[in-house]
């Protein structure tokens, strides 16, 4: 037996794969009990395990597989129907096989695993009334003695006299046999053709029969197909040790570095022949790198394959009905990442079945299909892979999460009204957070979601959750494609070079100080990016350097954690593929760096951590105004976000909710319609109202070729409020204000240490367009 070590290893590996397939097939079989294909496939897989275990003298394993096979053969032959109970018993049998295999793997023996009780259950299932009205008899109720009338008896088989492993005939029948069985050829013809082959005819059997007109081409084709090996992949793929792949991966990483250094050196020398060779080397390296990366890529199906079983078992035990839908299972990920995603994903799925999807009664009461749907979705998205776990359950209870967060001291009550719904939901990722009313053995112990978050963040990914009450919850994992090599931009700040992951970079803006310039809102640097204010973070300031000037610098528009901001750097050099090296653990604590890399010149470069840069720089408020909601404030208490504008010497604040867009119009585009100023805007005539006139703030007209306006739209109509300058966005507590008597204002407040007037938006709009709120006021529309 000593030579069998490797064979056993291969057998174990192959069997584990087969078992996973059987698991999936069994769960599918439950959905389509009539599928003979599925039964045959399961049968074949079990049969293979049985055969090999017999050969390797694992008698318990063989007996158990044999019992499972017997039950399957009854299903296959239609002696008894496929019922959920049979599936359960078969799954149990597979679990038994699995524990035998792991026992063999760990201890080298199968002696410690009890198979008798499982065999008894399987036999009980075979003896169960075939009408299947009653659930399968549990093991205790099953006859203890082996039932002799079972088609295949499970006799005690000492290892010495164990039956010879069955020939692989069932897996791959001779073509003659298939043709005869199908009635497509006569046994005598086949025999004579065989005889011809023995006598030296080198033609294939099917060819002989065909050429002698003993059978039909179609029949031979069909026979060949049924004969074709089921796992043809085995012929086109080989197994490779993962460690070897990892080593190759590391070496390619080093090669990329060496190439970068070489290319840089060659460029300096400037010899055209050398440059060509270097370019060629560069191309080959890139291709090699890509190829090596591909060997490590595996479809996400690998980690999804266990989930149907998880969902089935869990939903059954909870009395729920859950249908599992998988979309994009061919989406590929680096295997180390797959490994890291596996547990978090399983947790999310279990959580969705346990807490997300309601039980059938509640679903019916809510007017939903009693069967819930759990959708797993994977797709590529801008250099990342997104994996979603979506259920159509009751959704997250935002109020309860908020309340719980306050109880746990994670939030202060006054923060709640001011918070985005999603931010409140994100509290579930805090350690020790659970809103489950009762703790089940599945989830609800408050461990899990924070672990999910930590695990995903450890691999450079992100987790988010979104939920609609009554309609369901979507958990979303964003995972990088690979860890080791990233596309990055190198930038200069002071005399140092830094690396910014390209995935975070949206665009670059060069600030010349004339057409593009950095502006300041009460000291906070901002940039007008297509009419919208982009908060800026100066890298030199963030790193504690001496702060440089505002001219001749670059703004990198970055996106991180759902926030958009501009990072001001001195110079942007080039894009490069860099190999991410771990940073000394102590330096990680600084939080500013995601890692380090070796730059083309051999020096170490620090990779900036964009999201912590955003956080550190106190971008506390989400300044992203891309999708400013087009609805008006509900008038609730708490705080609101205000757009602060300058009108003459005064500061006027407009509730941000009422702002649709910020625009700049060239001064010469302003036209007059009657007594009013208007401007053509998106096929409409947009009436303008100058806040300086409205508020009686006659100061100097601001210079410049453009005017800044705040556009307000409602129900297809828009008006524009002209201000001198957009200053900032600020948060303000609605209680900290004083009512104003002045016309056109609702009050005053102190915002950023300055007295700011709050605009009466409705009043201002009516000043621009008296018919704005009346139904029949279509005269302002342009005919286009």
């Amino acid at each position, binding site marked *: 037996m000593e030579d069998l070590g490797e064979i056993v290893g291969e057998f174990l590996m192959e069997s584990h794969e087969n078992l996973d397939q059987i698991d999936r097939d069994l769960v599918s079989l439950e959905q389509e009990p009539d599928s003979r294909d599925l039964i045959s496939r399961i049968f074949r897989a079990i049969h293979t395990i049985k055969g090999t275990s017999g050969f390797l003298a694992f008698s318990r394993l063989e007996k158990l597989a044999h019992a499972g096979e017997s039950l399957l053969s009854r299903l296959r032959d239609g002696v008894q129907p496929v019922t959920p109970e049979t599936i359960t018993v078969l799954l149990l049998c597979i679990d038994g096989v699995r524990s035998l295999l792991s026992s063999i793997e760990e201890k080298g023996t199968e002696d410690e695993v009890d198979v008798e009780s499982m065999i008894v259950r399987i036999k009980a299932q075979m003896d169960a009334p075939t009408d299947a009205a009653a659930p399968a008899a549990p093991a205790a109720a099953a006859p203890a003695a082996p039932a002799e009338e079972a088609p295949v008896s499970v006799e005690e088989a000492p290892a010495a006299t164990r039956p010879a492993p069955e020939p692989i005939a069932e897996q791959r029948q001779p073509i003659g046999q298939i043709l005869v069985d199908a009635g497509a050829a006569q046994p005598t013809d086949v025999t004579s053709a065989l005889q011809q082959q023995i006598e030296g005819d080198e033609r294939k059997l099917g060819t002989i029969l065909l050429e002698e007109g003993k059978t039909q081409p179609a029949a031979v084709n069909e026979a060949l197909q049924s004969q074709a090996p089921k796992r043809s992949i085995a012929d086109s793929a080989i197994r490779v040790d993962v460690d070897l792949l990892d080593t190759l991966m590391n070496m390619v990483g080093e090669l990329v570095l060496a190439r970068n250094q070489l290319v840089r050196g060659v460029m300096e020398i400037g010899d055209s022949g050398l440059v060509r060779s270097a370019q060629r080397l560069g191309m080959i390296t890139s291709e090699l790198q890509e190829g090596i990366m591909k060997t490590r890529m595996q479809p996400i199906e690998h980690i999804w394959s266990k989930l149907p079983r998880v969902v089935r078992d869990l939903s059954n035990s909870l009395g729920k009905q859950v249908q599992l839908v998988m979309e994009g299972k061919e989406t590929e990920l680096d295997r180390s990442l797959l490994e890291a995603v596996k547990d978090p994903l399983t947790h999310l799925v279990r959580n969705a079945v346990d807490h997300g999807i309601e039980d059938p009664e509640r679903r019916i009461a809510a007017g939903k299909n009693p069967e819930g749907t759990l959708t797993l979705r994977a797709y590529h998205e801008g250099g990342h892979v997104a994996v979603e776990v979506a259920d159509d359950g009751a959704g997250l209870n935002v109020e309860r999460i908020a309340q719980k967060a306050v109880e746990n001291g994670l939030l202060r009550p006054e923060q709640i009204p001011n918070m985005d719904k999603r931010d409140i939901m994100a509290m579930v990722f805090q350690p020790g957070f659970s809103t489950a009313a009762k703790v089940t053995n599945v989830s609800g112990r408050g461990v899990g979601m924070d672990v999910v978050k930590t695990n995903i963040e450890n691999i450079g990914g992100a987790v988010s959750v979104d939920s609609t009450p009554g309609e369901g919850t979507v958990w979303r994992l964003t995972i990088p494609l690979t860890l080791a090599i990233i596309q990055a931009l190198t930038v200069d700040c002071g005399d140092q070079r830094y690396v910014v992951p390209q995935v975070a970079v949206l665009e670059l803006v060069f600030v010349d100080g004339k057409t593009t310039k950095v502006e300041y809102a009460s000291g906070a640097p901002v940039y007008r990016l297509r009419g919208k204010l982009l908060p800026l973070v100066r890298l030199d300031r963030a790193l504690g350097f001496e702060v440089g000037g505002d001219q001749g610098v670059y703004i990198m528009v970055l996106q991180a954690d759902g926030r958009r901001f501009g990072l001001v750097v001195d110079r942007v050099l080039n894009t490069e593929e860099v190999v991410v090296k771990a940073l*000394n653990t102590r*330096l990680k604590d600084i939080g500013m760096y995601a890692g380090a890399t070796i730059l083309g010149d051999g020096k*170490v470069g620090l990779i900036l951590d964009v999201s912590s840069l955003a956080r550190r720089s106190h971008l506390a408020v989400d300044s992203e105004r891309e999708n400013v909601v087009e609805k008006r404030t509900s008038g609730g208490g708490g705080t609101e976000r205000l757009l602060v504008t300058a009108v003459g010497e005064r500061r006027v604040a407009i509730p941000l909710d009422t702002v649709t867009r910020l625009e700049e119009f060239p001064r010469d585009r302003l036209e007059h319609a009657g007594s009013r100023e208007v401007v053509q805007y998106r096929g409409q005539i947009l009436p303008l109202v100058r806040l300086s006139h409205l508020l009686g703030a006659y100061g100097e007209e601001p210079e410049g070729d453009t005017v800044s306006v705040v556009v307000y739209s409602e129900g297809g109509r828009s008006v524009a409020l002209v201000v001198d300058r957009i200053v900032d966005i600020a948060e303000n507590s609605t209680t900290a204000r004083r009512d104003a008597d002045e016309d056109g204002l609702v009050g005053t407040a102190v915002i950023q240490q300055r007295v700011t007037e709050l605009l009466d938006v409705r009043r201002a709009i009516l000043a621009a367009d008296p018919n704005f709120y009346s139904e029949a006021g279509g005269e302002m529309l342009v005919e286009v």
Partner: protein
Amino acid sequence: MASRQFATFEVDGQLFGVEVHTVQEVLSYNEYTPVPLAPPAVGGLFNLRGQVIAAVDLRVQLGLARQALQGPVMNVILRGDGEPVSLLVDKIGEVVDLDDETFEPPPDTLSGPTRELVVGTFKLDGRLMLALDVNQAVDTYRATN
């Protein structure tokens, strides 16, 4: 008679030593990448055959002014706990065999940051060598706390 091997080096004229088995290698390097916001004792990062090594400025750890890091500086690279860490020193000395007999605890008059880094004194011919506590010596947060 028990004896131990020490790798010795000088900082500010004082001879220090660490046990030889804690040392991975000694080399001179001249390009360091500063790490903004890091504790002051972090001298910088450098590339050791593709590996990124953090260099701890032993001068800062001893309460002295930083190394200038212009031109080559000697590194004593310690194996560390899974990740090598380098100590920036002024000058490399010899590897010496020292009897335990020549060891004494640090003198009571030794105080300040040096006292915390030193486990004892070895009496060499004509000079004293202070044995460093390796873990303390590379703990860059120690001085700032």
